[in-house]
C-alpha cells in the first residue's frame, strides 16, 4: 500500500514539470515579444534570457527529482 501511495505521489510531483513549462514559456515568450519590438537590444539580453530560463527550469527539475526519490528512495 505504501509503495502505491509513493507512485501516486510521484505522479503528482510530475505536475511540477508542467508548472516549470509555464514558467519557461513565459520567460521565452516575453523575451521574444521584447526582442521583436527592439531587435537591436535583443542580442545583449540573451544571457539574461538563459539565466531566467535556467531558474524557471530548475524548479521543474526539482519536481522530477522528488518524483525519482518517491519512486526509488522511499
Amino acid at each position, binding site marked *: 500500500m505504501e509503495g502505491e501511495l509513493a507512485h501516486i505521489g510521484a505522479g503528482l510531483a510530475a505536475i511540477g514539470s508542467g508548472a516549470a513549462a509555464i514558467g519557461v514559456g513565459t520567460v521565452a515568450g516575453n523575451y521574444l515579444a521584447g526582442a521583436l519590438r527592439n531587435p537591436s537590444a535583443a542580442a545583449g539580453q540573451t544571457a539574461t534570457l538563459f*539565466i531566467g*530560463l535556467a531558474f524557471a527550469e530548475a524548479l521543474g527539475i526539482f519536481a522530477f527529482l522528488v518524483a525519482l526519490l518517491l519512486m526509488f528512495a522511499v
Partner: protein
Amino acid sequence: MAEDKAEPGLVFHPLDQFIVEPLFGDGPVSWYTPTNLTYWMALSLLAIVAVFVFGSRGRAVIPTRLQSIAELIYGFIYKMVEDVTGKEGVKYFPYIMTLFLFILFSNYLSQIPASYSPTSMIAVTAVMGFGVFFAVTILGFVKNGPAFLGLFWMSDAPAILRPVIAIIEVISYFVRPVSHSIRLAGNIMAGHAVIKVFAGFAALTLVSPVAILGIVAIFGLEMLVSGIQAYVFTILTCVYLKDALHPSH
C-alpha cells in the same frame, strides 16, 4: 517499476544506465576504482586536450576547422566572462573555462549510445557546484571584507522590509550550490532517461516507428540541452563571481 511484465515492454530499467560499476571485473567501488564514470571523465579530458592542443598547434592565419572550433569556444567564454563580471573577472577566466569545457565535452560525449554521462552523476556536479560556491564566498570575503555581507542587505528597500529580505537573500544564497548542481545533473539525467524510456517502447512492434522517431527527436533536443546546460552552468558561475566582486546591490 516494471519488474514482472509479461509484455515485451521495458526489458531494462531506464535508470540502469546511471549505475556506477567497476571497469574491470566486479567488486566494491572505492574511491580509487576505475569505473565507467572515471572512464568517461578521462575520455572527455582527452577530447578537450585533443581539440585544444591540436587546434592551437598550427596557429594559422586562416584557421583550420579544428582551430576555428577551439578559437570560437575560447572567444565565446572569454567574452561571456568579460561581459558579465567585468574586467576584474577576467583573472578567473581559466577556472570558468575549465568548468565549461568539462561540462560541454562530457555532455556531448554522453550522447554516444551506451556511454556513461559523468554530468548526470550528482556527486560530480555537486563537487563543481560547491567548488564554485566556496570559491566565490571566500573570494568575496577576501576582496571586500565584511562589506561582502552587503550582498544580503538591500539598501534600496524600505527599512521595515530589509530584515525580511535579508533572511530570504541568505536562504537563497545557501541554496545556490544545490540548485546549481542539481540543475545540471537533473537535466542530463532526465534527458537520458527519456531516451531509454522511448527505447523501451521500441520493443513493441506496433508503436516502434513512433518510438524511434521519438528517440531521434529527443536526441536532437538533448544535443541542444547539452550545450545550453554547459552555457547556463558557466554563466551562473560568472553571475555568482560578479556578486562576489561587486556585492553592493
